């Protein structure tokens, strides 16, 4: 699906209508956001069937909790993405331990010097700003942050995956986030 050119304000309005039980608005909200949220679920869970289940759960939750969406605190997409990611990470943690970073989970692209494949997926301007700021990080630092976001990894797990001392990982993450903060604030 081509990403629909739907503005944050329109998404907020659809969420507000959804909170009043407007099924048509909810259906439009799904059409506008499900492809991005589904790809996030697949990225986290790697299995399509689980990702479909998570997407259903997330939208059932969005329908029931639309009333608690606060436009002053988050954009509609941020709010929905948070629900989607949390649902996926919960499912991931509930899975048997073998389902760790599977074959489908390739984070090498984040450590690459060439981030153009990632760039091509972006639909909104703000994500371009973030990616530009991530370009300034060391490749492994970037990779550690992406692995933590997309797989909910804690410092210890990151240290194992990236074969680095725990202290190094902690410093990478902290400094990485700090430089993102400075970079985004300047952008």
């Amino acid at each position, binding site marked *: *699906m081509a*990403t629909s050119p739907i503005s944050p304000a329109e998404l907020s309005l659809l969420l507000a209508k959804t909170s009043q*039980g407007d*099924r*048509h608005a909810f*259906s439009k909200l*799904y059409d506008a956001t*499900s*492809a*991005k*949220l*589904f*790809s*996030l679920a*697949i*990225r986290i869970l790697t299995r399509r069937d689980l990702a*479909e289940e998570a*997407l*259903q759960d997330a*939208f*059932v939750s969005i*329908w029931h909790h639309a009333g608690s969406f606060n436009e002053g*605190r*988050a*954009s509609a*997409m*941020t709010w929905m*993405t*948070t629900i*989607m*990611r949390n649902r996926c*990470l919960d499912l991931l943690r509930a899975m048997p331990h073998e389902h760790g970073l599977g074959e489908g989970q390739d984070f090498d692209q984040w450590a690459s010097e060439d981030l153009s494949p*990632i*760039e*091509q*997926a*972006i*639909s*909104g301007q*703000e*994500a371009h700003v*973030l*990616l530009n700021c991530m370009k300034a990080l060391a490749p492994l630092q970037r990779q550690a*942050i*992406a692995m*933590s*976001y*997309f797989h*909910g*990894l*804690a*410092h210890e797990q*990151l240290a194992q995956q990236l074969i680095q001392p725990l202290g190094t990982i902690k410093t990478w*993450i*902290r400094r990485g*986030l*700090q430089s*993102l*903060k400075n970079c*985004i604030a300047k952008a």
Partner: protein
Amino acid sequence: MNYDNEKLKDMLTAEYVLGTLRGRARLRFLRLVETRPDWQAAIDWWRHRLNLLADMVPAITPRKEVWQHIEIRLYGQRLRSALNWWRGLALAASSFVVVLAVFMVLQAQQPAGVTSPAPPNVAVLTDSDAKAGWMLSLTRSADGKAEMHAAALPSLQAFPDKSFELWMLPADKSAPVSLGILPQQGKASMPIPPTLLAALDKGGLAVSLEPQGGSPTGSPTGPVLYQGKLAQI
């Protein structure tokens, strides 16, 4: 620790949102945030930024069935359970519906100058929250022709790009029979083949959500959103 330190605030909130803040540090953090609006604002800031990572994954359109399942989970049951629903409907509830329907029919339905040889059968179609969507009345004329009159009620939740299709659920559990498309506002009438009348007396009614124009297969394809049963006045 000095919790007014900007850098500390930034780092703890960022790690909280990213998910690397764990264990006791996370619990301490959550207690602190409750009383600190500035820390909550920092969480919002990071949530907004870090979730942009989700926009760096190429969009993948989910299968149509995913949305259908969401609709079923939220608004309706599958037809099979619809069949059981009307059979198990409590007498009290149905008699309430009939009384309401009779009242409304007598108030609004009878066209001037037409006398029906038999009293009409009526039904109110309701969703799982007992919200009414349509009032139906089945009239039979002296020459044996039958017509179902449907009036959309104000509480009906419309679906502009879909159709609501009315089905008869035969009492013998054979396949549902389409009776026609219901209006999303106002009134509509549909002719009923005389051969269906006996089955309609005993059977139930269900409304499924279908693509515009009705089910392409001749059987219900979407979720069942409304149900009811005809009753004699």
